């Protein structure tokens, strides 16, 4: 048996998995753009106090509603705050919500989905019917209701968005588990006496990871979009904080006079969501075992 396995490895040229992964991922221009945009957003969020030309909360009442000019590249809002600085600081909330809620939802969703798929039977039926129930409510509407009930603010928004994303992960992981658990190595693990938790996390979960990673990247864009929508409706991040969604709403009142106040933060949302979607697309190609060795 060992001999056969050896000759197979010799017959195939060695492929550097990491290098192949990077090459496939960055092979498409839009995906490379997405990666760069996400890195830029992360850097902007971390170094916001250094990069931003002004304090995002400083109200300079002499400079209210200025046109874009050399001092204020994107102008100022109705309280004299610098739009560009607020957009840079807004990246913090967008990333925090985008990444944070996805991690929360994916963690809970993975565990629940693993349990449902692994044990099957009535546990599966109860969990999946409840998931169907949550999925019958549009995610935005669900997030809206939970955010409003918990009270506006970062914590409420994060719980609300996580809950809205949760059923997607339960379904995804559960479906994966159902197919993975039929594999022979799972039965082999059973027969050598690995505990059920050990089988679930050491043998089944690693084989569900690639679709999970793709889904998580895609959902980061959606999470940012839901947060922005909640903030736009006045049920998300509270006003003085610089959140892109509420900036679009604030600017809406001055649309005739200073359209840039709405357009600029909206562009920021769009670029970041687009970037996450494209990277998700790229990851799907790069992690697809059928495409291994291509490109």
């Amino acid at each position, binding site marked *: 048996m060992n001999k056969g396995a050896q000759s197979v490895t010799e017959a195939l040229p060695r492929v550097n998995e990491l290098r192949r992964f990077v090459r496939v991922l960055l092979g498409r221009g*839009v995906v490379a753009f997405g990666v760069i945009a996400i890195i830029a957003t992360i850097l902007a969020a971390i170094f916001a106090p250094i990069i931003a030309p002004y304090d995002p909360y400083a109200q300079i009442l002499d400079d209210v509603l200025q046109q874009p000019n050399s001092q204020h590249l994107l102008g100022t809002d109705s309280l004299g705050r610098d739009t560009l600085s607020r957009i840079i600081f807004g990246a913090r909330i967008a990333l925090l919500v985008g990444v944070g809620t996805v991690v929360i939802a994916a963690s809970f969703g993975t565990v629940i989905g693993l349990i449902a798929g692994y044990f099957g039977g009535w546990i599966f039926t109860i969990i999946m*019917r*409840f998931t*169907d*129930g*949550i*999925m*019958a*409510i*549009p*995610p*935005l*509407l669900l997030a*809206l*209701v*939970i955010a*409003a*009930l*918990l*009270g506006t603010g970062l914590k409420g928004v994060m719980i609300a968005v996580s809950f809205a994303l949760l059923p997607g992960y339960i379904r995804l992981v559960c479906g994966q588990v159902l197919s993975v658990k039929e594999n022979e190595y799972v039965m082999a693990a059973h027969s050598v006496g690995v505990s059920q938790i050990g089988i679930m996390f050491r043998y089944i979960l690693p084989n569900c990871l690639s679709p999970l990673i793709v889904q998580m990247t895609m959902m980061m*864009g959606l999470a940012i*979009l839901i947060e*922005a*929508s909640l903030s*736009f*409706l*006045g*049920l998300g991040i509270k006003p003085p904080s610089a959140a892109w*969604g509420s900036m*679009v*709403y604030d600017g*809406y009142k001055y*649309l*005739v006079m200073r*359209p840039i106040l*709405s*357009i600029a933060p*909206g562009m920021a*949302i*769009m670029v970041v*969501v*687009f970037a996450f*979607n*494209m990277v998700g697309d790229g990851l799907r190609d790069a992690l697809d075992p059928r495409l291994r060795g291509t490109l």
Partner: protein
Amino acid sequence: MTTYIIRRLMHAVLVVLIVSLLVFLLMRLLPGDPILMYVASGDLQSISKEQVAHLKHKLGMDRPLPVQYLDWLKNAVQGDLGKSILYRYDVLGEIGNRLPITLYLGLSAFVIGCIIGPLLGIISAVRRGKWLDNLVTVIANVGITAPPFWLGIILIFIFSLYLGLLPVYGYTSPFVDLWKNLQQSIMPIFVLATFPIASAARQTRSSVIEVMRQDYVRTAWAKGLSERMVIMRHVLKNALMPVVTLQGMLLRNIIGGSVIVETVFAIPGMGKLVVDGMLSQDYTVVQGVILVVAVTVVVSNLAVDILYGWLDPRIQYE
């Protein structure tokens, strides 16, 4: 086929029941006391504990939760979703006034999405790698990422404020003034349709490309059929199957999007009702709207499932 439909029907009823339970629990278990809202809405600032207890008793909120739930459910089944806490109007009646507006805009967007989306996807797949394909891909990707509220604002800026072609916002019934209705509805419908068009185009493109690789398509080419015949007869029938399953999700998305669109364009539909209800913490209204939305989604999913079972004979006897 009949057993399939019956089974789907039972599943749908079960899901609606679960949604009703979820909505009820959500409203009762999360912080925020409807009684306090009820009191704060009036001019009773300092209210005694006895008065609160009396009020709770009067509204039936001092009973155990299961009793309250069953009572609410019983009334809901009989068409009574309660009264608005703040304004005392009948919730179902108000929904009845507003649902047609939301459905009119939503279904128009849905139909447009169902026609234009797959069409763009097919064109894109057939001309794969050409400039037309690239153009469609860019449009589709922008379409699924553009925040709907922002898209609405941009449209208002361009077509209403800058060009002065369309009214900024508002809604007029088509039975009152059809021309005005069309002018006011075109932008909201466009915003609602953007996501369905974009995601249907993406899905159609990839599934058409997948089907074009199949052996039977090569056979169709080999026997000398024209491009039109190959695409129409052999590719489309099979490629559009996965697109059909997407429709349920798209409809759910449109209903969710109507919350945003109705707020941006000040349209008195269900979405506006639920946002206003949420901002004023009018729980009975929110509870009622979500239940009606969930029933709408479940029924449309049921329709998609049955349509799929009818289109794909392999599903029927599963």
